[in-house]
């Protein structure tokens, strides 16, 4: 079938659309930003941005022939601006490539900025088309630049290292709240809940001796920064974060240290499934919240000999003691929340969700009610397994 001339011309014209990326934005000309840090300088009133850019010249270390230039696999650039966006655009003055932000996976927030208010950053991340709200936010106790420059012994960049560490923490322990920026944005808008972002601390300065096997861990992800509205008001510790995990039902795996019912020596119980049921009751200004936590776990360790699980009473006692640890975690989380008057556990939100009419009356005075709130915490733990043996080695 002969193609009509008209169609031929149209098809011919389409060829012009196949010339590749618009405005020569080819991947090799872009600088891929993999981590972003923001801070605020109260003296100058300027926002500071620090970014980590992947450097393709550095990652191929085993290049054959030629004078191989020893380049780092990433580059750290910083800039200042009156707004976060301006700071970001000011980076262009210092770079030979155009930055591409879609691969940014970490948002490190400096403590100064967190205390001033993070709304400008949240706006930037939800508005800008390349940035994403699945970025992992963390508040940095220490210097942003040092964190991004830190050498993660098992990863090629600190961005990758922090991302993996946050993800691993989510599945391994309950000491760091691994959240994405989307949750921060959502919780900021929900009534009766304050936001909380994980903390990065103990940042080790970079050592020149990178061949040493004893490199200090570059950073520790533990605890969290707690906010009221969009500004940070304090740090909370690891146990409080664990309490938050229990209340939210987000604990994937937790290791609890329990005193043995036999001789009060410590032993470890690993909880690998937990579920929380929270019921609020409101009568006038009287608010009572019942938190029922049900967890299943296994005994992972016993450092003194003796039979713990075969004898019913001891088994039950062990379970009660484990439950008490969980209850203490929640109690500590609540106490700290009341100290800071920041409802990061979302108890107000619980009332808003379950008892919306009561919340309407309660909301204006929530700041007064919250610090006096008492929780009825009932944890129940089933220890269902004890590993491959039933008791510790016998000594005769």
């Amino acid at each position, binding site marked *: 079938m002969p193609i009509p001339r008209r169609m031929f011309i149209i098809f011919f014209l389409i060829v012009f659309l196949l010339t590749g990326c618009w405005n020569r934005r080819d991947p090799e000309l872009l600088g891929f930003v993999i981590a972003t840090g923001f801070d605020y300088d109260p003296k100058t009133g300027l926002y500071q941005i620090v970014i980590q850019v992947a450097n393709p010249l550095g990652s191929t270390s085993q290049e054959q022939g030629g004078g191989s230039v020893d380049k780092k696999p990433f580059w750290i650039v910083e800039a200042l601006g009156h707004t976060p966006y301006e700071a970001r655009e000011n980076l262009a003055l210092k770079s030979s490539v155009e930055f591409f932000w879609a691969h940014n996976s970490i948002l490190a927030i400096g403590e100064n900025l967190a205390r001033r208010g993070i709304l400008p950053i949240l706006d930037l991340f*939800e508005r800008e088309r390349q940035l994403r709200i699945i970025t992992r936010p963390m508040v940095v106790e220490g210097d942003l630049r040092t964190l991004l420059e830190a050498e993660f012994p098992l990863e090629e960049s600190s961005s990758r290292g922090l991302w993996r560490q946050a993800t691993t923490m989510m599945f391994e322990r309950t000491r760091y709240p691994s959240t994405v920026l989307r949750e921060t944005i*959502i919780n900021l*808008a929900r009534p009766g809940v304050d936001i909380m972002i994980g903390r990065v601390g103990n940042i080790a300065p970079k050592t020149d001796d990178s061949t040493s096997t004893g490199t200090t861990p570059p950073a520790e992800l533990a605890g969290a920064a707690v906010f009221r509205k969009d500004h940070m008001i304090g740090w909370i510790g690891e146990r409080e974060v664990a309490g938050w995990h229990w209340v939210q039902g987000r604990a994937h795996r937790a290791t609890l240290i329990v005193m043995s019912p036999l001789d009060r020596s410590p032993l470890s119980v690993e909880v690998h499934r937990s579920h929380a049921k929270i019921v609020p009751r409101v009568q006038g200004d009287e608010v009572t919240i019942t938190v029922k936590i049900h967890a299943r776990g296994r005994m992972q360790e016993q450092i003194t000999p003796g039979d713990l699980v075969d004898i019913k009473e001891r088994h039950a006692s062990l379970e009660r003691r484990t439950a008490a640890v969980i209850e203490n975690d929640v109690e500590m989380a609540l106490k700290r929340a009341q100290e800071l008057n920041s409802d990061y556990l979302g108890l107000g939100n619980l009332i808003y969700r379950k008892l*919306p009419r009561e919340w309407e009356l309660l909301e204006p005075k929530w700041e007064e009610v919250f610090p006096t709130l008492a929780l009825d915490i009932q944890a129940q733990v089933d220890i269902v397994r004890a590993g491959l043996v039933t008791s510790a080695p016998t000594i005769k």
Partner: protein
Amino acid sequence: MREKIANRQLFYILFMMRTTVIIAFLPVLTTADVGQDAWLTSIITLFTTAAIAILVAALGTRFPEQTVIEYGEGLLGPWLGKIPSLVILLALLIIAASDVRIYCEMLVTSFLTETPLSFLIGTMILISALGAQQGIEVLARIADVIFPLFLIMLVSSLLLPLPEFRAAYLEPVFAQGLGPISRASVAPTAIGAQLLILTILIPNLTAPRLATRTALWATVASGLVLIIAAFIVVGVLGPDLGSRSVFPFYTMLRSIEISEFLQRVEAPIIFAWGLGVFVSVSVIIYAGARGFSQLLHLKDYRPLIMPMAVIQGAYSFQAYDDVFQLLALFRPLPVGPFTFSWFLLSLVPLYLGYLYRRLWPKKK
């Protein structure tokens, strides 16, 4: 001889036409202050849209061999009868133009930030017009091909975000009362005006008398998608971020993250959306050209397609100065009365005329 399409193909066309709007800006969530109860609004919308489908299709099935232009003249006389037809043609023009505009705004906002809008609209309309030139049978076969692809992408983009779904974001249910819920149902109901396309397509069906059933199936299917989409979008983004988003469905897809390897999966659904827009716009251009040719008693509709396309493109480009005007149109107040006037000027006179003819039949 009249071109024929199967009722199944009409179902595909209507389904894609209606679902692209959901993917575009999820009107139940973004046009009013309903928040987490958007899915309740979607349920109401399902019924109101079904009512529109019945009203539009029921009249058409009385005249299985005629388009609204033909039976309109029969019912209301040669001059008065042109009014409903003109209103319907205008309504279809506005719907298709807005469809294209929303899609192109999306592309300019998120993917092709420096491409001129006129170029995108022009390309989109040109391709649709080329499709319309081939006739409705070809378009229906294209719908046949695209539909499975469309469905797969739609279903997968509703399933992938599920790990991020939190039922808590949907609570409290029904706390604000009926006011916001009904306000939010205005715009999605008004978008039901798309079903006016039936008045022209019914005579092309292989089984025109079953048109009501087909239209209802399409309405129910797309209504269910709307309910599920409203449910999932709010469960992933929360009511606040969801309703502040210009394209909530797209924003939701951007927050998909399944482990490390499955991220940035929003492109496929944007393609599906584009394909859906292409089908609906070319069907509307076809219907418009054919309707117009009947209005002017022309033998062939084909010469009208290119001029129609130019008008479409110009309207799409000129009608809205910026994206804010486009969004403002869908607030309950302008869009409700606006589309209601379409029904008032088209369906109401036709039904009155029909009633009149039934009660006082003309003597032969």
